[in-house]
């Protein structure tokens, strides 16, 4: 009898809907309107890589020790350096970082002894071509820019 009354008066349905309507309150809305509302990203987020430069004179901080390339599980970092004949010091020439294969594990960042290579909070890394995912030294130092098109 009780079961029948529950069925007639749709008690289960109303109980379920009560929860639904409770969550309709504007305070309860958690959806992020992404392109208009920027997400708050954690400080330690491992996103697009960046090669840090000395802010005073624009020289690279990289000392060409090759440790990041050795630490990378996917072997996607290539450090190209030359020994300066005068000062006998290693100088960075090229630095490529293939983010199409990167899994953002952060091992290169941990390996770097001078904090030159850093994974930043930048998470928008889409590109139109596969080649666009291979970052060279200039891009790594400047940061990723959106692809510009001439209309």
């Amino acid at each position, binding site marked *: 009898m009780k079961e029948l009354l529950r069925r007639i008066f749709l008690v289960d349905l109303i109980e379920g809907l009560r*929860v639904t309507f409770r969550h309709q309150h504007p305070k309860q809305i958690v959806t992020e309107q992404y392109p208009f509302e920027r997400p708050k990203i954690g400080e330690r987020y491992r996103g697009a890589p960046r090669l840090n430069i000395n802010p005073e004179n624009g020289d690279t901080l990289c000392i060409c020790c090759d440790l990041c390339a050795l630490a990378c599980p996917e072997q996607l970092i290539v450090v190209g350096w030359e020994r300066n004949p005068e000062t006998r010091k290693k100088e960075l020439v090229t630095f490529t970082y293939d983010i199409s294969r990167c899994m953002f594990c952060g091992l290169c960042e941990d390996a770097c002894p001078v904090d030159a290579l850093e994974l930043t909070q930048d998470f928008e890394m889409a590109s139109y071509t596969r080649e666009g995912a291979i970052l060279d030294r200039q891009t790594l130092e400047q940061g990723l820019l959106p692809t510009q098109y001439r209309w």
Partner: protein
Amino acid sequence: MEKIAENRTWQMFAPYVDRMDYVAAVSNGLGYCLAVEKLLGVEAPPRAQAVRVILTELNRIASHLLWLGTHALDIGAITPLFYCMRERELILNIYEKYCGARLTTHAFRIGGLQYETYDGFEKEVLHFCDIFEKKIDEYEELLTGNRIWQQRLKGVGILTAADCKEYGVTGPMLRAAGVKWDLRKAQPYSGYEKYEFEIPTGQNGDTYDRYLVRMQEMRQSVRIVRQAVSDIPAGPIMAKVGKVIKPPVGEAYVSIEAPKGELGYYVVSDGSTQPYRVRIRPPSFVNLQALDRMCRGALVADVVAIIGTTDIVLGEVDR
């Protein structure tokens, strides 16, 4: 995955294990780190252990939440999915702040932790616990007493304790059949012996029991997290491990209670910087074997419920 390990150094393989069971990446990482630590003969410092426990238990909740949402979605209840995702988001935010990634976290390193907890970590975790306890009641309100839910799940896909042992099924599926077996209690690792919690069990081993066991497990996880957060010891977070890890020749097997069952790592070292062999015993792969037995005599519509309740992640099945 196992083949990749043979071409990487010990540290390099750690991010790969996150890709197996991608909804419970932290548990995978813990198992691998514990296995290599056993091989090396080191133990993570107490502070690292406590943080590891907090993160893995949060991961268990996240994994069960995803299971609950998708399982309910399979059965036909769409609403719980959104609620579960909302709460899971809070956990993922904690991960993002702690280690910088949300899903494939790479949170632990061999010998301890790479990252110190961030400011307000304890507060945030406790805040999550407070919110979450109310939310579980809400899920139960929506599902547990629901007539349709009960009719779809009760008596479906029965797997008895004997069957479970035959197939090697572990985790919540085994406990739903009434066997009180949890590796956190049976062979405590990473300081689990310090925390008080119960092992929820079911009686019939049907889909409904498995649902109830997982719900109870989430409550127990919250309990463990609360205990662990209130008492994180101070001290170092990394044991003395060299930059280059060269374990002595030998082998080690470590199994942990992952959200889906027993996750085992059998690692063999030949004394070099690379593993000689890493064999992984994934819970999903083993639990999936029992699908045939559970589906015998069931309707096709019930198969959906049964697959949902085994809680498999195919990344782990084909690792």
